Structures are given as structure tokens and as C-alpha cells.
């Protein structure tokens, strides 16, 4: 059996490793546009901040691929996939496959506005991006888009000593993860770090001769030498579209719960797919490392003929700001729009949390100040444990003696301290 994998990111590599676990004979060939080995995108802000060296972000060496008996065709763009003939074209060669895994990932968007091509515009996606930013020696930087990448990048650049601005179009930072109240708390924490945060502002252009000199918004002009775009990503689906695979409404490749695409023999996983949300069951995009790896596991298992199902997307994002952990699990009120949502909320000096529940089920959780008990909350969200049952469980000595870890989450479940 021969499996071809397009993409050398978290999903692609996890799929390869998982296939190898299932079978030592199966032939695996990986294709990637880039020529460097697998790296961890999540570690890039840490490199930017200077906490870890760049080479630490690389998770594999070429030797590792050899050891796993993975053939690599890196630095080669895949031009075409012929699903009927079960073959793809890369360079001027044709490769036939029994199974194909699309893990083409995503790329950050730089909008086509004035000045966005000037020297000094960056994204944070690959180690090269980070190298380029560091070589640019930024002193005044504007980060456009306050998602988790934006916030982490802002924090990192602040740690490098830059003057940092963070611009967000919505009324709050990390709008897809947090609700207004916790977002405001985190914003205050960022501002204490001396990051200048502006929400509700739309970027209209970048000004400068050859260099970035100013960033223009609908409300102000910010003097800067660096603009980092973290305002969203686009799924890399051109190849899939060309091959005739169905593309979903959110712009990702459509897959079923076995991570199978619309055509037989083709699987997809990672950033490039859209899959049902664990809670709502509606199609959603998950641009997270963990989802990619889990999807890759499922795709790999199914393409080796072993049944495995994907539970659905559930976002878990953790940030550490000034050493204080901030967690968002599942959906926020925005994601739960249209549902009648119960909010269990608490605020004290060093802890803020809110638990969102719909119909007796935990749907989302946001917490600033502690990681205690978040593991069991996450498990509840994944498993759909009814809140009432969890409460009963937490009052029962017998069950608690065998599942004591649930106790950690009791304060959230009961809305205590």
C-alpha cells in the first residue's frame, strides 16, 4: 500500500507517524512546498520573545523521516491531483497512490490594501517569518488582529523591548475565544505589560516610502516600523478544488467524521478542512494544533482500514500573560448565538471564570488566573456530561473517591469561589 501525504505540518506528520504505527510496510511519501522539516508553529512566539532558540521549534530532522521510512519530496509544489487515476503530479513526475491525505494547511492573510506590500509587513507562520522579523529589528510594531496569535506575538515583541500596538476590529480582544468581560480583564493585563490595545478599529492602510512608517486606521495614525498581520488565515484548498473535492461553505475541504473527502481514497485533515463542532455539530474551522493531530490520527487509521471517528472540533486555547494562565475552552457567547445560555460566573482578586451551559450541558469555559480543574471541564465538554449529573457526582462520596480529579472542577460547576 502506498499513501501520499501532501503537507508537512502537524497533521501531515501525525498522519505519517500514525500510519507507521499501524503498519511497518506501508509506503509513505510526503510532499511539501517548503523544504524544511516539521516545526511547531505554536512555539514561534516564544522564539520571537527570545525565550527559546529558533532551532528548538523544529520537531524533526531529516534523519527522523528516514527512521520512520518516510520518503520526502520537500520543496516541491504539487501541481495537480487526478482522483480518477489515483495519481498526483509534482515537479514533472507522477506519483500513484492507494490513499491520499491532504494536509495542506492554511496561510495568514495580508489584505490587499495600500502599503501592505511595503518592507516591514510580516506574518507569523513559519520559522522564516520569525527570522525575518528578528532581522528587521523592530522597535515600534503594530499587530493587526487580536486573536490568540496576535496576542502572543504582541506579548513576545513587548518582551523584545518593542513598543507594541495591538489593533482589533471587534469590540474585544480574542473575540472568537472570550466574551467581553474576560477579554477586558486580559486586555487590562496586556496593558499592564505596556501593550497598547485598541479595539473596534479598522485598519485602512499602511503608509511609508519604501519602509513601513505609519499604520492608518479609521481612527488614528500610528507611527511604526513593523506591521504584523494576524487578522485571519485562509485554507489552502486550491489543489483540492482543482481536483474536484467538495469545498464547504466556510472555505475548508468537506470531510465526514472519518476524515474522508467527497471522493473515495482521499482523506483530509488539519487546518485545511472544516469539520463538525463537538457541541453544535455544525461545520466549523479549527486551526489548532491538537485538532490537527487528532484529525490526522483519524484519517490515518481510516485509510489503513481501522475504524476511528473524529469527535468534532473543540477549541482549547491557553495563553500565559505575565505568568497568569488564561484558558478558553469550547464556545463563547458569540459561538453560542441563538442558544439559550446559562452563565455561571465568578470574579475575585486573582480568579475570573465563566462557564457557559446550554440545556444542562457545558458548552464553553473561560478562565483567567488558574488552570486547576480545567482538564475535567474540558472532558465534560467533550463528553457532553450533563451539568446536573456532574453536580450529583460531586456530592457522592463513593464516586468521588474513585474520580477525585473531578473535585478540581467543582468550584466551576457550582459557581463557587
Amino acid at each position, binding site marked *: 500500500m502506498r499513501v501520499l501525504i501532501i503537507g508537512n505540518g502537524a497533521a501531515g506528520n501525525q498522519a505519517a507517524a500514525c500510519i507507521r504505527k499501524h503498519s511497518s510496510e506501508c509506503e509513505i511519501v510526503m510532499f511539501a512546498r517548503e523544504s524544511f522539516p516539521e516545526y511547531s508553529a505554536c512555539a514561534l512566539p516564544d522564539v520571537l520573545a527570545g525565550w527559546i532558540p529558533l532551532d528548538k521549534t523544529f520537531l524533526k530532522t531529516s534523519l527522523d523521516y528516514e527512521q520512520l521510512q518516510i520518503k520526502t519530496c520537500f520543496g516541491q509544489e504539487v501541481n495537480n491531483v487526478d482522483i480518477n487515476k489515483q495519481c498526483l503530479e509534482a515537479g514533472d513526475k507522477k506519483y500513484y497512490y492507494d490513499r491520499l491525505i491532504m494536509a495542506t494547511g492554511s496561510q495568514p492573510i495580508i489584505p490587499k490594501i495600500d502599503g501592505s506590500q511595503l518592507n516591514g509587513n510580516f506574518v507569523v507562520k513559519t520559522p522564516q517569518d520569525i527570522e525575518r522579523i528578528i532581522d528587521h529589528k523592530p522597535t515600534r510594531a503594530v499587530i493587526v488582529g487580536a486573536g490568540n496569535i496576535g496576542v502572543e506575538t504582541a506579548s513576545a515583541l513587548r518582551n523584545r523591548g518593542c513598543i507594541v500596538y495591538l489593533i482589533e476590529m471587534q469590540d474585544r480582544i480574542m473575540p472568537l475565544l472570550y466574551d467581553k468581560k474576560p477579554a477586558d480583564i486580559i486586555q487590562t493585563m496586556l496593558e499592564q505589560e505596556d501593550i497598547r490595545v485598541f479595539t473596534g478599529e479598522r485598519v485602512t492602510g499602511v503608509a511609508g516610502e519604501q519602509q513601513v512608517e505609519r499604520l492608518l486606521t479609521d481612527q488614528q495614525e500610528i507611527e511604526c516600523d513593523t506591521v504584523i498581520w494576524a487578522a485571519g488565515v485562509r485554507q489552502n484548498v486550491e489543489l483540492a478544488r482543482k481536483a474536484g473535492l467538495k469545498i464547504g461553505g466556510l472555505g475548508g475541504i468537506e470531510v465526514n467524521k472519518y476524515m474522508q473527502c467527497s471522493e473515495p481514497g482521499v482523506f483530509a485533515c488539519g487546518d485545511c478542512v472544516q469539520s463538525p463542532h463537538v457541541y453544535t455539530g455544525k461545520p466549523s474551522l479549527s486551526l489548532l494544533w491538537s485538532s490537527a493531530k487528532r484529525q490526522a490520527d483519524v484519517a490515518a487509521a481510516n485509510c489503513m482500514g481501522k475504524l476511528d471517528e473524529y469527535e468534532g472540533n473543540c477549541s482549547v486555547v491557553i495563553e500565559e500573560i505575565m505568568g497568569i494562565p488564561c484558558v478558553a475552552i469550547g464556545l463563547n457567547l458569540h459561538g453560542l448565538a441563538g442558544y439559550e445560555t446559562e452563565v455561571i460566573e465568578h470574579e475575585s482578586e486573582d*480568579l475570573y471564570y465563566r462557564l457557559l451551559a446550554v440545556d444542562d450541558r457545558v458548552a464553553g469555559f473561560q478562565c483567567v488566573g488558574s488552570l486547576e480543574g480545567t482538564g475535567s471541564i474540558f472532558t465534560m465538554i467533550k463528553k457532553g456530561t450533563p451539568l446536573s449529573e456532574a453536580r450529583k457526582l460531586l456530592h457522592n462520596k463513593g464516586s468521588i473517591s474513585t474520580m477525585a480529579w473531578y473535585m478540581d472542577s467543582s*468550584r466551576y460547576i457550582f459557581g463557587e*469561589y
Partner: protein
Amino acid sequence: MNDYPGKILEINLSTGSISSRAVEPDLIKQYLGGIGFNARILYDEIPVGADPLGEENVLIFAAGTLVGTPFPTASRTEASAKSPLTGQFGTSNSGAFFGTQLKTAGYDALLIKGTSQTPVYIVISDEEVQILDAAFLWGKECWETVDILEQKHYGAEIALVGPAGENLVRFASIENGRYDGWGRTGLGAVMGSKKLKAIAVKGTRGRKVHNSAALLEAVRKGQQLIKSASSYMAFTEYGTLNASIPYGKNKAISAHNFTLGTLPDWKEIGGRQIVDKYGSRHVACQSCIIACGHWAEIKEGKYAGVKVKDLEITPVMSFGATVGLNTEAIIKASEICQRYGVDMVSTGGVLGFAIELYKKGIITTEDVGFELDFGDDEAAFKLLHKIIDREGIGDILAEGTKRAAEQFANADRYAIHIKGMEIPMIDPRGRWSTWSLGMLTNIRGGDHLRCRNPVENLRYNDKDEEYMKERFGFKKPMYDRLDMPEDLKSKAIDLESDTVDIAEMSKWAEDLINLYNSVGICIRPPVMEKVGPTIIAEACRAFTGLEISAADLMESSERTWNLIKLFNLREGEEVDASKFPRRFYEEDIDGNILDEEKIQAVLEKYYQVRGWNGRTGKPDANTLDRLNLVDDLG
């Protein structure tokens, strides 16, 4: 490299100043830690004649040297101040997890000076120390306060006072979390007088040890020693309650304010089998392998739902014997004591005293507001709440038996105390032993916890004519294994007549217990029987890297004891204060009575063993010179 010693944290509530300093090398060498630090520091810091409830008094918490290691039972923290109850050195020891947090926050001792104007509480999180407003906690009972503070300061261990401490009840305790406490000598009133509601400590630092492998080896040996103790199995199962029935049989319990010697149904009320009925699980303090505590729960009846970590001999004797309550009422009583922050022993003593006054007609229903009787739990609790709130007659009783007896005519005969502190549980008329003499020689007054024969045998109870000996039932191998210098051993123990010399053994036992209180281990009998200075020295060497021998440890402990004695003398301890209450010499129980002169002779022998003046009990210059204390002799 190691993290011994930590720092001394000093907080002045009058000025709000917070500072920390290194422990002077001399202090470490001479006083080790725990009660040793407390004695030295308080001797230097508290001016003579200071008002215990005034600004000049200093409250100090010091965790023992070995606290924070897995050395068996190393969990204990000593709290000390000038006692509002006795006017002398007030000190008390508690286990659980407070000491570990204090140590891992980087501190060996916590010194609290001055008095705040408004209620405050202290939060210690490593170097970050804050004095915060406690108006919202003032007046709240302990468990509620712990709940609130645990929520606010996650993971912190909390020492606090209840309403009794706030109301300056002279036998108020400092509670250590929900269920433990620094009970005796009224330290809660000191904390209350400083308007300090609570101390929350959280430590996040590890303790580096000089020689980790050697310490683990000492830990292993220590565990083996304790497990090999003859009382180990009994203690893991029943804890301190093992002593309850033997003392009842000997007519040596404090029944009905020391009038009966025993109770007809004592076995049912206070026997160790109540553990089987009410207890569920064993509870240990930090690093303990005995786990003498039990979760107790009353499932039905009028006290249904009461849950405490308890079933120990102290409440059983104080409330079961002294006040005559039944088992369920005893458990309820200890819950009240823990919630409102009063010392169980003194509370029992005061209640017993009040009930006897009532029965003798010295106080009447008019004074009290209701009838009192031994065994009437509802009346006792009503009176207890009056004491806690200092309401009506409770205001007088809150002063402790000694002071309260002065308020009533002919009442002092019924006030069972030594040097102002209520005597706990055991009646020396029923059983004369090293333990009984220890009450007289105790540096904190009428108390049983600072002198206990490490090789006591409760099966025997035949005192000799001269009160000098206690029978043991020794066997040669046991004698050989006893960790005690040979010369002392041969003086204190006579194998031939199978007896222990009470005076000689008292000094050894006191120094040994004082050593435990310095290094922070527990005085449960399995520990006392087996863990001697040798193994402690081994653990201390591994932990601190200092060259400490067993003899050094015992000397340091003796130094501490002498220094505390000097403190007490400086505060005006009288020559003839070391006496039992008159009742013990004048009223017999089934023919058991104490002979004052003979006891005086034992006492004088003890003074000689200590190197003190045989008549006055003041340390001789030679002794002080030997202990480097000569400068402290005012």
C-alpha cells in the same frame, strides 16, 4: 548547598512594617528551631512585665527544623507568646500542614509584633507579604473563615482565631485550619488582642537538602523504628484513645472536675471503641506514618451531621470526664471548640469548675441563667457560648479558672489549675508517674504534654512510698535498644527492681520532648518510644549539613528549657507555684491522695538533676554557664 536555615519574617502590626532577616548562625547552633527559636527570640523581645494582651507582647510561629521533609511526623510548628492565662511563657504545638507551607515560603519563623488598630489578616506567599483588612472576617467562626480564605488564597494553609480569640477569652486557641490548633496557654487571645484574625501562608519554593540520599535513609530508618514500636499498631488504629480505659481503670481521670476518679460507664463513653462506632478514616498530618486522627461523623440523634477530624483523648477526657458528657456530646463539644477557637482542655476545666460551683451553691441559677449539672450537654454548651461571647457570667469564666475563682467566695478549692492553667485529663492521685510530676515541672503550667516517660507502661500502677519510682516491666532487650546515653540510662532505670526513677526520667523526657518541639516531630508514644536523639541527629545532619551530634541536640534542648524557665522566673514565677491544687492533697478518691511533702522531695530531686537550686528551683550559675546562658541571668 541547602536551604537551611530559612529566614525569620517579622511583621509589626502597629507600624505595618514587614521585614525578613537571616537566622543568626548562633541561634541555629544553640537553639535548632521550633520552640528553641521561640524561647530565644521571646526572651529577647518581650519586655519584663509586658501585658500579654498589650502591644508589647510578641507572637511567634516557628516550624521545626525537619518540617517539610518526609521524616516521620515532621509537621509540627510551635507558636509562642507571653501567655494571657499564666502570665508566663505561653507556647503550644500543632501539626497538620501549616509548618510545611511556612517553610516552603522560605521562613523558619514568623514574628508578629505590635497591635493593629483595625482587624487585619496576613497573607504570606513567598516574599510577597501583605497585611490586609479583615473587617469582613471579624466575628465569623473559624470554619467559615477558613472557607472564605481558602477561596481567596487558593492552596494556602491558614492559622486563625475564632470569636473567642477576638473576645480575648484567656484560653482561646489559634486554630490551624479547620481541625487542628495551637490550643493551650491562650495564644488565641494574644492574636485577638493584636486584632489579627488570620495568617494565610503559601509556599512555592522547594527546600534543598544538604544530603538528600542520607536524609531519605534517615527517613527510612525513622519509619522502621516507629513501626517497630510496641504501641505502633494500637496507635494507627485508635490513636491517643488507647490511654483512655487504662486511666479510667486506675481511677485517674478528671471525672466531674476531679471529684470521682472514674465514671461507671467510662468504657462506653470514652473507650477506644468509640473510634469504631463514630470514626471512619485515619487522617495524618504531614509526613506522619501513624495517622492517629480520625474523621468522625455523627449519623443520627440530635447531633446528626456533626463532622470533625477528631476522636482524640483530649476532648474525650475534657468533656467526657471533666464535664461528664456522653460520646456524641463530646464530638459536638470539640466541634464547637474548633469553630469558635477555644482550648479544649481549659474549656473542659472551666466548665467543670462552673458546674461544681453551681452544685456547691457558690453560683446560682440567677448568676448563670439556667441550671447546670455534670452530664447536661445543652446547659454546658449554652454556658460555653456565653464564655465565648463574654456574656454575663461567661465574662468572668472567660478569664480562666484561677482568675474566675477570685471572683467568688470559697471558690479556689474547685479551681483545678497549676500556675493558672487548667490541668488536663489525668488525676495524679489515681496514678503517680513521670507524667504526673511533669505537670508540676512543666514550663507552661498545668499541662501534660511536655513531659512523658518515653517507656511508660500503663499496665502498672503501684507507686512506691516515696513517690520516687514508676514501675515499668522492662525487658533487657528493650532497655538495650532505648536511645539514651548509657550513664543516664543506668541512673534513670533500675533493671533489677524494674523501675524508672521519676526525677531522672523527667529531665530526660522533658528534654526529649523539647527536642521534638525544636525539630518539629510529634510526641505520640510510638515516636517517643523509638525515635531518640541519635536518629534525629542523623536526619538533622543530612538536612542542614551542620555537624550535630545527639549530645549537641540534647544540650540545645536543655538550653531551651532553662531559658524558658528563666523567662518564667523573670516574669515572677513563685517558688511554691509548682504545686497541685489543694484538692489533690486534701480530698481522697477511694483512698488515693497525694502527699505534699513527699512530692516536694521528688521535685527537689528533679531540681538537682536539672542543676537547679534544690529549694527554689532556680537554675544554678554553673548550669547556666554550661549552657551559655549565664548572660541571661538578669
